[in-house]
């Protein structure tokens, strides 16, 4: 296979990985700091997309709509935290999985009631249409390139906030010793609510960016949720660095598997066998990867130091 194609697929993998990272960052923050397993993270992604569609329609301006939509998702995340999730921090993971599964059902139906079950359209503005030429003859969609750019910028900003600011210090301290930081006079509840809101807004941002290329429909969060969990588990829960590495690994492995597994199998197996086994194996690839990683490193690639 030509090198340019491999490079293009790598880029596709990175782009998918970046989308996964935006989701994974919020999830892993909430997990690492509040010790909360939030299955409803996918619902926040969905709500981000829906709220943005509504805001773009209402304001008539793409950027204003995106800003409004993200802000609304942030508020929604904080509201959910205060109303439902706050009491779950001290519960075991089991209760958390259950309660947040309940939230998934609720949000999916809420969206269906408010906006109907038909998928919605979130059009890209004209300035995000078009292509860039990476190497001769390739046409890479500009929008995808922007997604990569935004994702990397968010990753850099998160890294800066977590390692270099007072807020980040509080967050890291809160993750390693909750009672100590509360004793030091920090309003831990407010901090948690805020962190959860940020996580929600990051998921919302992923939803906003998914809007123009994926289907904005009820249940869209669950299509990606499991993959995001795979990401944070591979990366090591609670670690932003791990989420970033995990997202890129999963994005690239999944993409390359979908692209090249069948042709590769075709070189060893009969075409019919490769046709049957290729897609099936490609679907399982990231789960195999996760099982392999966990079998070797039961706490993921980058176990967070604060930890449980």
């Amino acid at each position, binding site marked *: *296979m*030509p090198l340019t*194609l491999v490079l*293009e*697929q790598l880029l*596709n*993998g990175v*782009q*998918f990985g970046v*989308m996964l990272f935006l989701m994974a960052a919020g999830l892993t923050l909430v997990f690492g700091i509040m010790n909360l397993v939030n299955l409803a993270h996918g619902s926040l992604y969905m709500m981000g997309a829906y709220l943005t569609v509504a805001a773009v329609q209402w304001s008539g301006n793409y950027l204003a709509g995106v800003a409004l939509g993200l802000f609304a998702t942030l508020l929604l995340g904080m509201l959910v935290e205060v109303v439902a999730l706050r009491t779950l921090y001290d519960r075991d993971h089991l209760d958390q999985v259950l309660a947040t599964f309940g939230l998934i059902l609720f949000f*999916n*139906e809420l969206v*269906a009631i408010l906006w*109907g*079950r*038909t*998928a*919605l*359209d979130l*059009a*890209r503005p004209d300035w995000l*249409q078009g*292509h860039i030429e990476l190497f001769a003859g390739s*046409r890479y*969609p500009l*929008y*995808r390139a922007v997604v990569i750019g935004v994702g990397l910028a968010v990753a850099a900003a998160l890294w800066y906030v977590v390692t270099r600011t007072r807020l980040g210090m509080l967050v890291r301290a809160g993750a390693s010793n909750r009672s100590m930081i509360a004793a030091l006079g920090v309003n831990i509840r407010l901090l948690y609510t805020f962190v959860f809101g940020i996580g929600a807004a990051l998921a919302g941002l992923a939803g906003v960016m*998914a809007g*123009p*290329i*994926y*289907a*904005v*429909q*009820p*249940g*869209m969060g669950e*299509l*990606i949720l499991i993959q995001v969990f795979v990401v944070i588990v591979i990366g090591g829960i609670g670690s932003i660095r791990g989420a970033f590495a995990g997202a890129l690994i999963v994005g690239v492995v999944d*993409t*390359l598997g*979908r*692209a090249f597994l*069948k042709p590769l199998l075709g070189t060893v197996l009969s075409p019919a066998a490769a*046709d049957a086994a*290729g*897609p*099936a194996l*490609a*679907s399982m690839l990231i789960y195999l990867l996760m099982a392999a990683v966990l079998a070797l490193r039961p706490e993921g690639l980058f176990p967070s130091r604060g930890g449980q």
Partner: protein
Amino acid sequence: MDTGSGTLIDSAQDSLEENFMMRKTFFAVAIAAAFAASPAMAQQKLKIGFITTLSGPAGIIGKHMKDSVEVALDQLNRKVGGLETEVIYGDDQFKPDVGLQVAEEMMKKNGVDIMSGIIWSNVMMAVQPAVNKAGVIMVGTNAGASPLAGAGCNELYFSTSWNNDQTPEAMGKFMQESGVTDVYLMAPNYQAGKDMVAGFKRYYKGRIVDEVFTRVGQPDYQAELSQLRAKNPKNVFVFYPGGMGVAFMKQWSEGGFRGQFPLYSVFTVDETTIPALKHAVLGQYETKFWSPDLKVPASQKFVADFQKKNGYLPAFYGAQSYDGIMLIDSAVRAVKGNVKDTKGMVLAMRKANYNSIRGKFTFNVNHHPIQNFYLLKAVAGAGGKDPVMEIQKTVFENHKDSYYKDCKMKW
């Protein structure tokens, strides 16, 4: 083709025998109940159980179906076959066992006289045997699993839709006849996807560049699209229903593929997905047995009444469901309201003596319609509205599915 035919031949015979046995007891119970309840000769009220998916992401299809059933009921003044009618809707949640449970509840608890609906092949495969075994007629209004058209056919099972692979057969034929010699195929990696590709290849005989099966529910197709561009095929054929189709078409158009590669699809662009895709579908070719612009009086009346009542265009899912109610109506009329006369109802249904949205048609021996298939194209809607599908030409006239010869039913 159908790998499960060995068992299904046996099961068809078994279930036929069981039908008759079960029906005897069913009659006995029904007669006892009739004596106990009221001395009326003919039944006063007709109960129809209609199963579809109402909740969850696929609920949009269920909504089209339910809204269409309501239009049919309105047109009949809420009297199917002249009887006071109650339609009980059931939500199968896209799960075969829940569909079965709902069907059992409808038959055993609500005492429905006839069953209809069902979107998914797997739900139908679970529900149909139980319904027919209980001696109740099932009028399927979407699911098109090939075993049910072939060896697994049943005299109490009718379909107002099609078999899965007929629609891609039409597309295969159209492309073959248009001199296309080079096609790249894409579909989700599940049974319907394989049915579609098989149907397409039955009539298209040119070169197949590659067949790509993607993960079910996959939201991102960029990797597959890059592969496709690298292979540089002359034409592309895809099957991506529902949300997968929305994502695929958006990415097709975003990637600049439209205009570069002619795209032909089945069950990808329809009235349930156009609102999400808008201009991204313009120029898209599909094949289908029906379209809202079909020039058939019954169809035009259905579309007009539907739009007036619901404010949106019905999709074929709805048309088939409307047709299912109208088929039941004709059968109940034929037995003069005596819906316990299952045999009479079956004989009446076989005549297809009603105003179908597809125009006059006949049932094949396997109780599946012999019908036309058309080539459709997405064109701009009037006055800047959403695009609409427009019939271009007839691809198949009176097309039969390719499984009916395995059906041992004798009329």
